[in-house]
């Protein structure tokens, strides 16, 4: 199959029914995309397929033919959302983080808290209770890179 992966054309030898998740992790060696449930419930394997967030465990390779796929590796190291996830402690164990970030990238401008919740409703996090993730995403959308404000009383 042939597709664009993080801006580069990629050709891999994979059966049409192979899961895009396995193509990315095994054939392409990009292990930043994680498997959490294998049935599209947890969102840990979220990538962008032609700009839309999808669970790569549910996408057959044939569906990605000629498409543009972006994974967490495609963001490099300097995307502000990555740094906000670190600073706000939106990443605890980190296994949901790549999928969570990819899902958040699809948000439109000026989202409300409810917009963020809806956009991330398909991504499970068991560590954070989501609060720190909202703080990271809302700050990113507001262009605010200030340090976290959590403080004790």
């Amino acid at each position, binding site marked *: 199959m042939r597709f664009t992966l993080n801006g580069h054309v990629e050709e891999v030898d994979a059966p049409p029914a192979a899961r895009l998740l396995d193509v990315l992790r095994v054939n392409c060696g990009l292990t930043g995309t*994680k498997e959490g449930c294998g049935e599209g419930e947890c969102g840990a394997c979220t990538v962008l397929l032609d700009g839309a967030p999808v669970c790569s465990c549910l996408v057959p390779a044939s569906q990605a033919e000629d498409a543009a796929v972006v994974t967490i590796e495609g963001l490099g190291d300097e995307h502000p959302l990555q740094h906000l996830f670190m*600073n706000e402690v939106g990443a605890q*164990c980190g296994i949901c983080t790549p999928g969570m970030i990819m899902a958040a990238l699809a948000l439109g401008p000026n989202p409300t808290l409810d917009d963020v919740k809806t956009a991330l409703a398909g991504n*499970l996090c068991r560590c954070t*209770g989501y*609060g720190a993730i909202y703080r990271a995403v809302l700050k990113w959308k507001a262009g605010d890179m200030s340090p976290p404000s959590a403080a*004790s009383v």
Partner: protein
Amino acid sequence: MPAVGSNVARKDGIGKATGRALYADDLTFPGMLHGRTVRSTIPCGRVRDIKLEFDQAGFTIADHRDIPGRNVVALIEDDQPLLVEREVRHAAEPILLLAHENAEVLRAARVEITYDEQEPLFDPELSTGLLKQIAIDKGDVDAALSGADLVVEGTYRTGHQEHVYIETNGVIAVPESGGIVVYGSLQCPFYALKALKGMLGPNVSVRVVQTETGGGFGGKEEYPSMIAGHAALLALKSGRPVKIIYDRVEDMVATTKRHPSIVRHRTGVARDGKLVAMDIDVLLDGGAYVTLSPVVLSRGCIHAAGPYRCENTRIHGRAVLTNTPPNGAFRGFGAPQTEFAAEVHMDRIAEALGMDPVELRAINALAPGDTTATGQRLREDASARLVLDEAVRRTDFRHKREAYRGTNKGIGLSLFYHGAGFTGSGEQHLRPRARLDLTPTGVRIAVGSTEIGQGTRTMHAQIVADALCIPYESVEVAPPDTSVVADSGPTVASRTCMVVGKILEECAHEMRARLAGSTPAAHYAEHGPFSVERGYEPPDWIQWDDATYRGDAYATFAWGCDVAELELDPDTYEVRPIKLTAVQEFGRPIHPALALGQIEGGTAQGLGYALLERVVMKNGAMANAQLTNYVIPTTLDTPEMDVVMVENRYAGGPFGAKGLGELPMDGPGPAVANALRHLGLDVREIPATPELLAECASR
């Protein structure tokens, strides 16, 4: 600027945010095979025959006869086999191991096992298989009960809970000269090491290395010893690296869960609300093997009276065997179960007295100078009233309690506490150690305490940096490799900050004295490396008697008060949490943003436990072993949280810190149940699913 108390960048933050952090399934080794576990499909019986119905070319196959050491997963008792020999005691018990280089071929291999089935036992109340009994006795309960103005009785139940760490269990065993190294997703590398040494015998050297771990919550405390043993056995037999990664279904069906509980209360009260006698019976379903049930029961019993003063208290507990997979460690470790019962019971007592539930708690809340059920006299760091008063004030609880009457909204609270560190003499027996190494650029922390998301690396580095008066950035943390780091004990029991952090603080003080004013780098350049290693010295006043369960159960407790506000759909009995206020005192936060994350995350997990997370058991196996029908809170199920961190420093902890990890798990269950009670539903069980609430409403 001091590192402690500030929100420094997580040591592991950027690796996780970029996807570069390597988890077990991200690692591959040359010549690596994939491993698979063939499991029992019955809950009780004996294996009659095993037929391999596949072409065995290219397969490595191992059963109990291949174990070079003892067929035991060593923990408290040596009763659990690594692989079934004949006797099957629960569904999904491992019987046979297969490995192949092609995962598809491996999956397709068919194994037919026939059994002589026996009658299984699933009801803990009918079990005669007693695996641990605990008795805590204080004062004269019977006399006090008969003299009480009012006696309130009740039975409370909690169900299984599945951890749902988003990374499933996984390990890779790799042969190396003379032995095996196991890389794995785990909380306690030295537990796995001990178990592996027993299984592999004296002629195989072993080391264990923790890989980046995608959540634990107790679920990767003891179970990884099992999966590590399986992979090691296959690696030994094949001479090749073997990776075993469970898929979600296998992880949910086969691994441990929170112990279901049945707790009975009989409480005598005076008309003025004073508790005069508490008679409590705790029953935990241990599942098919002992594993950690004795200590889960212990913590459960010690917390069973709740954070209240009562001169006459009897707590009798039992953990029993049934034919389900063994239940095990889960954040809170018995306390969420017994504190659920205690706190729902308190609201029922208030109802019976016609008293405000806040007032009842305020009258009886433990204060400095009071004694707990085990006779522990509390010190100045006891904060029950502090958190209760703040939560009530902040939520305008009494006003809302009135204002919500007659609406579909309810509000309820819970007051709770959680002992930090191992119980009683546990830390003395464990003898944890920690080490600091001088490096060319600073210092390196070398402990077996693991980062599982909670922030171990970061928080330890903050403590060391400030105790050494060096920048946080010059402190590095060694990956836990049992051949390199000191055995600081398991990453459990809210002890990693308070206990291991304290040893590290003392190591840093000793190192600072030896540096005699020079920086680590300058000292290293002139004199070369040195290390400081120390053990833990518990406070000298701790007295504990394991035989009588009397004395100082914990060096300190953390305290919390949760207020749940929710809305009930009167037709479907669906519950929508509106807001959860969590006021918690845990000494002081080393890293406020990390601490906030522990409280928000633990509270969400507690809300799932309260409302959503129902494990359906059919014939001794989890029937809803998928994230499709075992539902944990999503963004849309998780309400707004208002978290308040109240400081009351503990002199025995690093920079005044206590343990925090488990505390937030104890409160949401009873706070939610009490909010539902406010709506007129007599809820005495969780999870409070719509089905359960419909039943409550029809009673």
